[in-house]
């Protein structure tokens, strides 16, 4: 007696059959099916295994509140390890499998765990797995988990959109549609979002009438007229989060969008007012053995019947404490099922008469006291609602589905996310907003006629808050039906019976009582200790039952216990949707040199440095990069090299107060720099740490050009702006980042003057252009600048022309015979000269004096950035790490950067500092290294040796001056 598809009815397209597989077994469904309805129609009972006890799990609900049917889905080259079967639309070719089971959900090897359930209550893992739980971890993770990731890249495209509205209406059911009509007729801009593919909400599966028209039909025509009235309709869209200032996060699922373009679309909607009409989620009654496949929410059973024409069973027991389950029983009877209904209320409600007339066996004052059947419900025992033993059976019914309704919980999530408070409504046995949040309305109703009326009122109120009046529009009407009140009923009072609350995480009534005994009496503690409500359904059908039982167990009222904090998202949101198109090249766009094509033509080894693609080196045929680097560095020292330095920052600082401002910012004196001259400067942070090094050139009395390092240009500019705006707002100075406007190439080596002179009218003789000076003029007929600065230690000229002339200038310089060299080669050359690289030789603690640069602190009178920090005790410690050179005793051994210099004591090893850079030096023909070592300068003085330690191996090196090559700097001048 399994589920079956009825030959008529439902809102599926029977003309379009879709083939899919379940655990490899071929099955068929229809267009309009979800994975869940298709599996049910094919008689599938077990779709998964519970997290802890590995008990079989069947489909429980029909929408987002589903806790069990989480499937592994493969389709169209995509893989989803966590597809919620009740919300995913079936498509041809889908391959479905269960998760958390080996080899499959029907014959899971871990099902034996359930036999040990007495030793696996809530929190058992805090009391077992001694002495070190990490040893058990791999097995635990194997046994308990949901889907498995395959590691494929996600090839789907996602989009981000934003929209503005006067009113956002959350929920396209009767209340939402009524509110939208009212607000739109007042001329307001309205967005209406509903998470189902068709608007209508509960109208889609009820047989009631609205304004004399069947509810589902009314929903369709109303949606059409709303669209015509200018309401923006967003079906298939979940409003998952409420944020500040009327911002809402929405996830629109577009499934197979045109041309495979955008899949999920993330919306940020800012609304001046929000009407929340999200409906309510049904919760189950809690009774013994209520976790078996076949136990389902009553409204879900109705939904499968009306939406998908799936009759879940021929013999069904309905167990309830409220009127709504009677409509389900009537619908099932009409479809030909045999229905027994147990109502915990001792007085049969008004609606019972119609049910009995239709052939439903109604048992007042009754509840299910046990269910029998290993892999699914087979027999149902019904007993008195106050039964204290499972033997108190008044009726045993053969049935394969138990449809349960324990009440309805209005979806107050968005209200609570907005910090709205809740009150417990005793009559409705539900949490409701105690007062609406500012600029929000919340609509909750107990009947269709109420929903239409309250929704209409919410729309009118929202309109009047905008000062708009409604044109004469009457609310929609549906016949009111007499209703009997719900009787709150939290579990069957049978001690020792296993009664489930959280089906996914296997949390039972016993666990709630255990938590209360162990004094986890706060609802937040209850959640974490038992894991109630922490599964992928986030307790949508279990939280209220759990906290009501906690109230009973601790002698408090339900409002005294309260709820846990509601946090977005309401349902899961793909990370891809949050990222939108900001990934790959669009996440961090790379910056390209003006002459990049030239470097590619030379087969340069291009790598990314600080966001720029730059040549590391230019390996020739048959050369490794390491060989190329050594060759290029040697060529620069022997003849002349050519380097693309276009990425180096260029910031113009301009204004009457430019000099004074730069003196306040930089460590060094800048104001006394003469026009035409260049100076090496450090920029510190307020804690004294060296943030950036670079050069500054004085262009005129009121103009300077800063050259920060490539990766710090934006940061330096931001720092200058922040200080001028907030600390020195009266100073007249402006900044311009002109980095991208110029192409800059360095010509470096003994022959640099010889090859460059013919290309420019600028006088390059030693007196006209000494080291650390610049001149403007023409290079190959194009106006530019030549700065004589050096990072290699050889005579160097940095030639700058407007960026678009860069490639032509590069080619001209190449024709002179200069050897192209890349950053890695430059790094070797500068290491031979003891020139630092910020972030390599310095770190977040390095002060200027550690680098041997202490003059400005004594000489400068103004309060530059970081000055006070250089006067602290810590800055004056004599044992600080200082910048040194290291010569390994083995000339072929290149130490690993990061190797510690160690001192061996009786307690073990103590670090004195570390190696920051290391390489083979072509100029010296042996290995060299740079490092930061405690009392470094004293060690240089004494020629001491240190022991270097790295990954278990030790070596020795002599501490020397970091200037290995040409210590007098003769090559730089002349």
């Amino acid at each position: 007696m399994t589920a079956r598809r009825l030959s008529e009815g439902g809102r599926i397209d029977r003309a379009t059959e879709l083939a899919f597989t379940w655990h490899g077994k071929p099955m068929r469904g229809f267009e309009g099916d979800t994975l869940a309805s298709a599996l049910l129609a094919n008689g599938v009972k077990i779709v998964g295994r519970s997290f802890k006890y590995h008990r079989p799990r069947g489909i429980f609900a029909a929408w987002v509140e589903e806790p069990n049917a989480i499937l592994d889905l493969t389709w169209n080259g995509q893989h989803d390890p966590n597809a919620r079967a009740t919300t995913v639309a079936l498509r041809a070719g889908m391959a479905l499998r269960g998760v958390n089971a080996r080899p499959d959900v029907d014959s899971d090897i871990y099902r034996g765990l359930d036999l040990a359930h007495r030793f696996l209550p809530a929190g058992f893992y805090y009391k077992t797995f001694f002495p070190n739980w990490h040893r058990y971890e791999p097995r635990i993770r194997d046994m308990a988990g949901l889907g498995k990731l395959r590691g494929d890249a996600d090839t789907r495209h996602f989009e981000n959109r934003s929209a503005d509205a006067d009113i956002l209406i959350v929920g396209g059911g009767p209340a939402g549609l009524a509110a939208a009509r009212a607000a739109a007729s007042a001329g307001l801009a309205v967005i209406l979002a509903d998470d189902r593919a068709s608007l209508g909400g509960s109208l889609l599966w009820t047989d009631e009438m609205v304004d004399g028209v069947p509810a589902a039909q009314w929903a369709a025509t109303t949606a059409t007229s709303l669209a015509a009235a200018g309401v923006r309709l967003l079906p298939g869209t979940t409003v998952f989060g409420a944020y500040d200032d009327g911002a809402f996060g929405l996830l629109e699922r577009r499934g197979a969008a045109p041309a495979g373009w955008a899949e999920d679309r993330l919306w940020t909607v800012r609304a001046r007012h929000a009407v929340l009409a999200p409906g309510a989620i049904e919760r189950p009654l809690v009774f013994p053995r209520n976790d078996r496949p076949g136990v389902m929410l009553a409204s879900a059973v109705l939904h499968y019947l009306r939406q998908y024409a799936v009759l879940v069973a021929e013999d069904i027991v309905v167990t309830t404490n409220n009127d709504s389950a009677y409509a389900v029983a009537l619908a099932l009877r009409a479809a030909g099922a045999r229905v027994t209904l147990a109502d915990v209320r001792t007085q049969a409600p008004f609606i019972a008469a119609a049910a009995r007339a239709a052939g439903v066996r109604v048992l007042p004052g009754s509840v299910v006291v046990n269910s029998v059947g290993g892999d699914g419900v087979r027999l149902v025992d019904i007993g008195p609602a106050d039964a204290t033993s499972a033997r108190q059976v008044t009726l045993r019914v053969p049935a394969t589905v138990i449809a349960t309704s324990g009440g309805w919980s209005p979806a107050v999530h968005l209200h609570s996310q907005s910090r709205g408070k809740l009150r417990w409504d005793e009559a409705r046995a539900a949490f409701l907003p105690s007062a609406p949040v500012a600029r929000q309305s919340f609509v909750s109703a107990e009947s269709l006629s109420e929903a239409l009326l309250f929704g209409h009122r919410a729309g009118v109120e929202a309109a009047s808050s905008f000062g708009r009046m409604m044109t004469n529009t009457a609310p929609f009407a549906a016949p009111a039906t007499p209703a009997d009140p719900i009787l709150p009923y939290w579990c069957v009072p049978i001690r020792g019976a296993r009664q489930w609350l959280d089906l996914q995480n296997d949390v039972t009534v016993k666990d709630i009582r255990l938590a209360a005994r162990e004094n986890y009496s706060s609802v937040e503690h209850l959640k974490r200790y038992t894991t109630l409500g922490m599964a992928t359904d986030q307790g949508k059908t279990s939280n209220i039952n759990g906290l009501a039982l906690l109230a009973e167990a601790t002698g408090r009222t339900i409002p005294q216990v309260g709820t846990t904090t509601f946090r977005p998202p309401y349902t899961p949101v793909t990370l891809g949707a949050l990222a939108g198109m900001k990934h790959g090249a669009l996440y961090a766009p790379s910056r390209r040199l003006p002459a990049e094509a030239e470097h590619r033509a030379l087969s340069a080894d291009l790598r990314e440095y600080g966001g720029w693609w730059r040549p590391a080196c230019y390996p020739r045929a048959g050369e490794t990069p390491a060989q190329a680097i050594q060759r290029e560095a040697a060529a620069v020292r022997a003849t002349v090299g050519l380097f693309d330095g276009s990425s180096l920052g260029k910031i113009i600082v301009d204004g009457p107060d430019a000099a004074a401002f730069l003196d306040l910012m930089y460590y060094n004196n800048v104001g006394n720099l003469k026009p035409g001259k260049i100076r090496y400067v450090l920029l510190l942070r307020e804690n004294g740490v060296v943030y950036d090094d670079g050069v500054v050139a004085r262009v005129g009395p009121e103009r300077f050009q800063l050259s920060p390092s490539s990766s710090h240009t934006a940061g330096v500019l931001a720092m200058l702006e922040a200080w001028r705006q907030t600390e020195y707002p009266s100073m007249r100075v402006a900044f311009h980042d002109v980095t991208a406007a110029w192409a800059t190439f360095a010509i470096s080596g003994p022959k640099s003057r010889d090859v460059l002179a013919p290309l420019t009218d600028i006088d390059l003789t030693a007196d006209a252009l000494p080291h650390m000076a610049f001149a403007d003029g023409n290079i190959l007929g194009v106006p530019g600048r030549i700065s004589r600065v050096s990072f290699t230690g050889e005579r160097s000229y940095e030639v700058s022309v407007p960026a678009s002339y860069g490639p032509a200038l590069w080619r001209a310089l190449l024709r002179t015979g200069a050897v192209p060299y890349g950053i890695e080669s430059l790094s070797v050359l500068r290491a031979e000269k003891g020139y630092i690289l910020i972030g390599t030789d310095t770190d977040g603690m390095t002060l200027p004096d550690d680098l041997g640069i202490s003059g400005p602190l004594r000489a400068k009178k103004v309060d530059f950035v970081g000055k006070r920090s250089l006067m602290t005790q810590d800055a004056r410690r004599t044992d600080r790490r200082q910048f040194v050179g290291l010569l390994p005793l083995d000339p072929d051994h290149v130490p690993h950067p990061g190797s510690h210099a160690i001192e061996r004591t009786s307690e073990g090893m103590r670090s004195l500092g570390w190696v920051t850079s290391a390489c083979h030096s072509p100029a010296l023909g042996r290995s060299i290294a740079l490092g930061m070592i405690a009392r470094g300068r004293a060690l240089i003085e004494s020629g001491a040796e240190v022991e270097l330690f790295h990954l278990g191996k030790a070596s020795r090196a002599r501490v020397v001056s970091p200037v290995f090559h040409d210590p007098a700097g003769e090559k730089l001048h002349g």
Partner: protein
Amino acid sequence: MLLIPCPWCGPRDEPEFLFGGEPVTRPVPAEHVTDAAWADYLYFRDNDKGPHREVWCHAAGCGQWFVMERDTVTHSVLSVRKPGEPA
């Protein structure tokens, strides 16, 4: 996601801005600043619950820094002021 009223550009979404923490007065001159006062300036902030003064920069817009008073509990923006404007 806050809607921040930039004093120059008007209300813009929070991701356009950079948060700069509490405004602090820089103690000068360095020679007369105690270690405690300097440490306070560098590292200690009041971080009050409720109305809170803080600086923001409209980094993706006009690039200007301004002072905001915002309630850290409700997130309401109470006021925004250009630097130097009186309270």
